């Protein structure tokens, strides 16, 4: 019943579902939805059998690009992304962490050159024993994915 309502409400666009409630506004921020002029519906603190409490974003008339949705992998790796056309799900977009993340992450090391000079941040994505870590290309510090600071 709930599911039908969400998808049915959007004719064309992108639905991002199963966002942990505390990450909803981070998703809004890294997708720059605050400056997006399309019709956007946000919902938060919805009940979810899987994750307890979830958030949801619907963007009308815009299919997000893969490099945009992959940014979400950084903060909400279990989010579900559906691209909708004429009320139908035409693509279930898997979230893939890229090998390198540029620009959107801020290095947590206050002594890193990227926090002092106009340098675009670059992080290598590492996976060790099933745990994802980011390694700053410049200061070489590693940080767990959960601790990442989004710009």
């Amino acid at each position, binding site marked *: 019943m709930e599911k039908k309502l969400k998808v049915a409400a959007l004719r064309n666009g992108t639905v991002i579902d199963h966002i942990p409630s505390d990450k909803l506004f981070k998703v809004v921020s890294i997708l720059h939805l605050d400056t997006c002029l399309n019709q956007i519906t946000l919902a938060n603190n919805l009940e979810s059998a899987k994750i307890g409490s979830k958030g949801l974003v619907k963007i009308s008339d815009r299919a997000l690009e893969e490099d945009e949705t992959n940014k979400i992998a950084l903060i909400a790796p279990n989010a579900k992304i559906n691209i909708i056309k004429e009320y139908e799900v035409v693509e279930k977009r898997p979230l893939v962490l890229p090998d390198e993340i540029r620009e959107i992450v801020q*290095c947590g*090391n206050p*002594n*890193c*050159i*990227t926090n*002092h*000079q*106009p*340098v675009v941040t670059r992080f290598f994505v590492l996976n*060790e*024993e099933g745990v994802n870590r980011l390694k*700053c*290309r*410049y*200061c*070489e*510090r*590693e940080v767990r994915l959960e601790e990442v600071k989004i710009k």
Partner: protein
Amino acid sequence: MTTKEQNMKNNSLVSISDYSKEEILAILDSAADFEANPNRKTLDGKVIATLFFEPSTRTRLSFETAVIRLGGSIIGFSDAATSSSSKGETLNDTIHMVSCYADAIVMRHPLEGTARYAAEVSPVPIVNAGDGANQHPSQTLLDLYSILKTQGTLENLTICLVGDLKYGRTVHSLIMAMSHFNPTFKFIAPDELKMPDEYKVFCKKNNISFTDVSELTNNFNDADILYMTRVQKERFQDLMEYERVKNVYTLKNSMLENTKSNLRILHPLPRVSEIDPDVDSNEKAYYFRQAQNGLYVRQAIMSKVVLNQKQE
């Protein structure tokens, strides 16, 4: 482009992990040649810039002596107050300006990651002479050279790392570099300054066996190398704790009684109180000669960095 490809393009040396096992061994070979004959003019007519955005007289003099012995000339500055960065110039601009004059740049900077960034934007090779707490590869190479010289090999050695293993960049780089040579490590540090997990993960991944202990006394009788580091007061929140740790981690001559005859003691210098002066006269004390080895290793580095450049 990967970091490695990018650095190969302009031949920079930013981090010890930029060099393969073969490249490390080639540098050590070349350093031995320079030790036998230190005055070969491989940099005749070359200009090398030494840009020290923070003072480090020891490292700067070692690099500058190396270049002068190779027949090259030096330009540069020895602290940030005399550089144009004090007028607000970006690092990018400083590097481009200097690269108009110099064939290579030796750089020290208080911020971490500066050398990698400089290597990206610089048309000439960058040699990292220390970027904050991050990397100092010429120190690592001279450590390796000292180990090789005193042990006759780098393979299958037992190495004890003592002191500040949390912030000490020399010990972190040494682990990376020695990972090519099947070492066994013993980490000896107070609880506040234990080896960070990421280096233990690195060891496990590379099948390097290690143990982690807090006690210094009687814990290095099986060691081939005892690598001491400075325990810095600033690292402690509790100064009482610092006083306690400082005394527990001081190496004294009497503690060397039951150690192996081939054991050698290294220290990146300057030391404060972690090695008692009564150790200096022990034949196992190697830290002063270790510093001297830095000259030959830096001759080898500067020759490689400047001369291999034209290969493309």
